[in-house]
C-alpha cells in the first residue's frame, strides 16, 4: 500500500448556540507514504478541524458525523478508544498548534517524558538513549529534562514538544501549525530540523498551516483548502509554477516577498469564508474574479490533470488562465 493514510467522505461539524454547522463536507484525500504533505488554508477553511478529525481527537462541541480515516488498513474513527490510545505516539502522532502551552506547567520535562513512556508500558531507563537522541535531533541537550516548561524559551518548548511526540518513533506525524507564534529565526531552524528528521527517519508528515510560504518551503506535496473543501492538490512544484485553481493562483500572487515591491493585475479581495451549506455552486464563488453563471449552479468536483498527479476543483480551468493572460 502506498498511502500512509487515506481519508474517505469525511464530514465534520460543530455544535453551537444556534445548532449544528458543518465545517468539512465529504472530504477525500490519500496521503502517500514517506513525504511531507502540506495542507494550507486560511481561517475558516477547517484545516485544524481536519487535523483533529484525522487524529480522531476532536472534542465536543466538534463532532465527526460520517467518513473514514484509514490508517494501515484500519479505520481510526472506528477503532476502540483504548486501541487508538495505544497507537498514539507509537504509530502516529500529533504536534499541536500553540505548542507553547502544550506542556504540563507543573512537571519537569523528564517526568513528562516518563509519563509518555509509562502510558505505553515502556521503561524510562531503557529509553533514555532514545530520548537523548530525539532531543539532539531537535538540537536540545539532555539538561532540559530537569527543567520546568516555564524555564524554557518558546522555541525550546516547541522543540521539546516535537521531541516528546517523536520519542516512540511513530510513522505518521500530524503537525498542526507547529511554528505559529515563534520568532522568524527560530521558525526557520525548526522547519529545517523537521525536514531533516523526516528525511532521516523516512516519516510521513502531514503539515497543516495557514502560512503558505513555509508550507511551500518544506512540503513535497501540497493541498489547498478553502471552506471545508480541497480546491487543489499536487506536487509542490506543480502547485507553485502552474496553479490550476484561481484561489491558489491569487493567494500565491498576494504573498509579499523580498524584492517584490508591488503586484499588479487582479487581486484577491474579500474575506475567507466558512463552508456554506446553502451554496450549491463553487464555495470560492464570492471571491472569485473569474466566476461565471455555471459556477453558481454546479458544484465542481476534483479533477485530475492529464499525466500528472495534480487535482483541482474548478470548472473554468484553464479558461480563466487565458482571461488573466
Amino acid at each position: 500500500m502506498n498511502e500512509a493514510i487515506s481519508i474517505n467522505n469525511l464530514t465534520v461539524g460543530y455544535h453551537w448556540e444556534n445548532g449544528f454547522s458543518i465545517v468539512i463536507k465529504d472530504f477525500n484525500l490519500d496521503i502517500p507514504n514517506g513525504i511531507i504533505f502540506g495542507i494550507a488554508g486560511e481561517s475558516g477553511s477547517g484545516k485544524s478541524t481536519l487535523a483533529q478529525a484525522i487524529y480522531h481527537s476532536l472534542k465536543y462541541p466538534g463532532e465527526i458525523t460520517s467518513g473514514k480515516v484509514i490508517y494501515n488498513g484500519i479505520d481510526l474513527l472506528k477503532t476502540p478508544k483504548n486501541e487508538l490510545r495505544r497507537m498514539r505516539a507509537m504509530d502516529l502522532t500529533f504536534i499541536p498548534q500553540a505548542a507553547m502551552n502544550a506542556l504540563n506547567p507543573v512537571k519537569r520535562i523528564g517526568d513528562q517524558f516518563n509519563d509518555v513512556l509509562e502510558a505505553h508500558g515502556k521503561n524510562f531507563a531503557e529509553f533514555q538513549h532514545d530520548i537523548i537522541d530525539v532531543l539532539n535531533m531537535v538540537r536540545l541537550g539532555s539538561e532540559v529534562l530537569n527543567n520546568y516548561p516555564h524555564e524554557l524559551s518558546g522555541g525550546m518548548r516547541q522543540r521539546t514538544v516535537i521531541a516528546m511526540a517523536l520519542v516512540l518513533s511513530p510513522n505518521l506525524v500530524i503537525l498542526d501549525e507547529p511554528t505559529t507564534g515563534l520568532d522568524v529565526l527560530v521558525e526557520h531552524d525548526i522547519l529545517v530540523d523537521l525536514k531533516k528528521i523526516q528525511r532521516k527517519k523516512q516519516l510521513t508528515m502531514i503539515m497543516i498551516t495557514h502560512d503558505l510560504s513555509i508550507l511551500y518551503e518544506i512540503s513535497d506535496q501540497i493541498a489547498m483548502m478553502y471552506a471545508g473543501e480541497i480546491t487543489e492538490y499536487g506536487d509542490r512544484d506543480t502547485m507553485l509554477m502552474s496553479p490550476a485553481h484561481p484561489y491558489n493562483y491569487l493567494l500565491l500572487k498576494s504573498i509579499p516577498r523580498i524584492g517584490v515591491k508591488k503586484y499588479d493585475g487582479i487581486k484577491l479581495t474579500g474575506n475567507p469564508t466558512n463552508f456554506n451549506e446553502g451554496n450549491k455552486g463553487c464555495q470560492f464563488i464570492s471571491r472569485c474574479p473569474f466566476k461565471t453563471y455555471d459556477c453558481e449552479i454546479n458544484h465542481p468536483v476534483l479533477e485530475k490533470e492529464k499525466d500528472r498527479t495534480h487535482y483541482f476543483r474548478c470548472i473554468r480551468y484553464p479558461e480563466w488562465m487565458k482571461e488573466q493572460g
Partner: protein
Amino acid sequence: MIITAIPIKYILKRLTIFIGVFFGALTLNFVLPRLMPGDPAEVVYEDLLKDSGGTLNVTYLHQLESEYGISTTKPIWDQYFTYLNDLFHGNLGISISFYPTPVSKILEEALPWTLFLVISAVTISFFVGNRLGRYAGINRNTGKDLAIDLFSMFMAAFPAFVLAFIMLDVFSVYGKLFPIGGAYSSSVNMGFNIPFIISAMYHAVLPVGTIILTSLGGWVLGMRNNIIPNVNSDYINFSQNLGMKDYQIKSIAYRNALLPNLTGFSMSIGLSVSGVIIEESIFSYPGVGMYMITAIDNLDYPLLQGIFLMVIIAVLVGNLIVDILLGFLDPRIKQEGE
C-alpha cells in the same frame, strides 16, 4: 527575559505581606474594642460589689482601672504602645467575665479545641471536596455531575447553624449515636492516652461533620469550575494525543486545577473558623467560640482581643503555610513579581 529566582524570595515576599496584614489586624484589634461602649473596670467592680454585699470600697475601682490599662487620662498612642509591649511579652491581660483568670490561660485551654476542629474540618473537606469536584468536572453534564452540583449548592445554601441543630437533634437527641456536647467524655482523663483520643475524636464527629457538610460546596464547585477549562487545555489535549492513560490525564488535570483552588484556602480557613465559632456553642464544644459569646456579652475586652489575636494568627499562619506550600508545588510561582 526570564529571571530565575529562588523560592526564598517568594517566601520572603509572603512573609512581608504576612507581617503587614498581621500589624493591620493587630491595630484593628486594638481599635475595635475601644470603639465599643462601656468600661470594663466598672463592670468588674460592680460584680464584685454585688457579690460582697456592698462591703467593697470604691478605691478598689481605681486599682482595677490601672490593672486593665484603660486609664482615661493616658493618651491613646500610649495605650497602643503599652498594648503592643504587653503582647510581645505574652501578656494578654486578665479576663473580665472570668475574673481573675488571665486571658492567656483561657486561650491555652480553648484554642487547641478550636484548632483541632478547624484543622480536621478544613483538611477533610479539602480532600473530599476536591475529589468530588474533580469527579463532577470530569463527568461534566452527566447526572452524576448534576447530583453533586445540586447537593453542594443546597448544602451551601442551608443555614449552617440550623443544619447543626438538625444534626444534633437527629444524631444525638433522638438517634443517641453521638454525644450532645462537650469535647470528650467526662469519664476519661485528659492526656495523651488512647481512650481520651478516641473520646475526643468521637465528640468531634458531629461538629466537624457539620462544618464539612457546609463548607464542602465551595471546594466542590471551585474544583469543578477549575477542572473544566483544564480538561480542554492545551496540555491535556497534548497528553491525550500522546496516548496517555486516563488516570494520568486525570491526575494532570487535577493537579493543575488544584493549585488555583488552593488559593481559596485563605477564604476557607476564615469561613471554617466562623463556622466553628458558631457551631461550638451549638455542640457545647469548649473552644474559643464559646468564650467569644460570653466575652461579647460581658464586654470582655482583654478576652476578646486575645481571641481575636489568636484566631487571626491561626488564620494567617494557615495562609502562610498554604502560600509557601503553593510556592513549592507550583514551579511558576517562583518567578512571580516580574
